[in-house]
């Protein structure tokens, strides 16, 4: 549940980008940082190790302006994708308000997508949250690689693998070029605010 400061009239929402290693989570935040300057309120902070792998999280603070007199702030996080960083993933997921699941369109990563979604499901459950109820958006990333002649899954396959039951809004994307990045984020914000309104009784 969002962090609501009644005295300061501030609401802090947390949106987490989840997904297997190297699927493009950090690239999403990078793009947002560079292209949504009006909404970005501070530096993007990354924790990358030498293999440019995310160690703890990436962090990007944003502001959405005032809603009903409340200053609504948004914090975007990514989780480390590698399987061994499960503890950190869980810590970052704590008190999440909205989620973007970034899936890798590369056919060789098919199973990794599914495993990561399962991992998300399990971690949410441990916090008493249901993946069916949390505001969630699917992103099928790296669509640009089709042009490279590399095996890429069709959107139908990805929908079937990952979104058959969840039926979350989904977007094809190329985080590298920026295609679909804004739509993904905007939809996630919309769902997150909708659920916030419900919680606040607005």
């Amino acid at each position, binding site marked *: 549940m969002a962090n609501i400061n009644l005295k300061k009239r501030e609401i802090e929402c947390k949106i987490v980008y989840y997904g297997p*290693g*190297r699927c493009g989570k950090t690239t999403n935040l990078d793009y947002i940082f560079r292209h949504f300057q009006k909404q970005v309120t501070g*530096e993007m*902070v990354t*924790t990358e*190790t*030498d*293999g*440019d*792998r995310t*160690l*703890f999280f990436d*962090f990007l603070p944003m502001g959405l302006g005032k809603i009903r007199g409340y200053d609504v702030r948004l*914090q975007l996080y990514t989780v480390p994708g590698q399987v*061994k*960083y*499960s*503890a*950190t993933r*869980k*810590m970052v997921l*704590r*008190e999440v308000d909205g989620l973007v699941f970034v899936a890798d369109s*590369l056919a*060789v*990563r098919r199973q990794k997508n599914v495993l990561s979604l399962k991992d998300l499901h399990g971690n949410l459950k*441990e916090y008493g949250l249901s993946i069916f109820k949390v505001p969630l958006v699917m992103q099928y990333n790296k669509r640009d*690689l089709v042009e*490279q*002649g*590399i*095996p890429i899954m069709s959107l139908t396959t990805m929908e079937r693998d990952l979104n058959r039951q969840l039926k979350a809004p989904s977007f094809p994307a190329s985080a590298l070029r920026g295609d679909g990045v804004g739509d993904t984020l905007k939809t996630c914000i919309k769902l997150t605010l909708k659920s916030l309104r419900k919680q606040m009784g607005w």
Partner: protein
Amino acid sequence: MDLKKKIKSLLQHAELYKSQGLLNEALEKYVHAGRIIKKHAAVIGNKKLLPAVAKRIKILKAEINRIEASPDMSVVPENVQDIIKNKFAFTDREETRDLEGAVALAKFGQYDRALREFRVLMDREDLKVNAAKNIIRCHVTLNAMSDAVGQYREWFDQSALRPEELNKLRVFLQSILDKKGIKETLPGKEPEPIVREAIVEDPGIMDGEIILPELVQGEILGDADAEEEIIDISSVEITLEEGPGKWRTVEYDVSFQSGRVINLLISSSDKALIEILRTGLELKKVHFYSPIAMFNGEGVVFSKSRIESGPKQGDYSLDIQIKHIR
């Protein structure tokens, strides 16, 4: 010809996966290409191809090993630590937010910074003892017992703490030392034993008024323990059902405590135990040891996670929420 095309395509894919940081996928493609080249060496005729691919494979393998073996950067820059401190302090109570922030730093393995924060918090009357205990816990977690003792002695010499506060810390650390079999007696003494009993035993002497014993006791206890809402647990003994009718008792030191949640570190070698202690598991039979007493109670496994960096890498960190204490 087909064969050459196939090899070319495999090598191209390998390059692309590599550029995406997907090293294992890249390796697989190179190995596949290498196998084909070897098998059809006569047809292909290019003698330089196989050594070139072999070299790529070697470099890639070295890179994969390097990433896997390299100790994860355990200390992150100050600005990242600030985020951990400010954004990972999950509590509803404003008063304890700073303490939670420092505990979060410790949980992310940022011990030096955590120690610095706990030291600052020692200036806060309401958090002083709690912060001091967490300083000791940091040293204990790092297995730096001499630092823990040194720290206590420093506090003892400085007289920055009130005698009853100092005594709490002495009892706390002494019990850890005793449990670890470290022969060291901390300076300090038991507080004047039980003024309250004197009063309780002879309530009549107080201005000729009759004071109810419970009230007097309550007042004195309340005063001394005002800042202490939850008892400090230094270790726990948990009895678990390992299989039908098969019981096992384990004992663990508490590495951190934050309110009703205690944190234990479980060695990676204890696989069976890690397996059993799944999140949500109700622990019906727990002995909670505080430095001064033992309580029976119940708890629940709140979260379990593997430690990824620092000296305890590979071990498991377990949060247990205390349900009842009897």
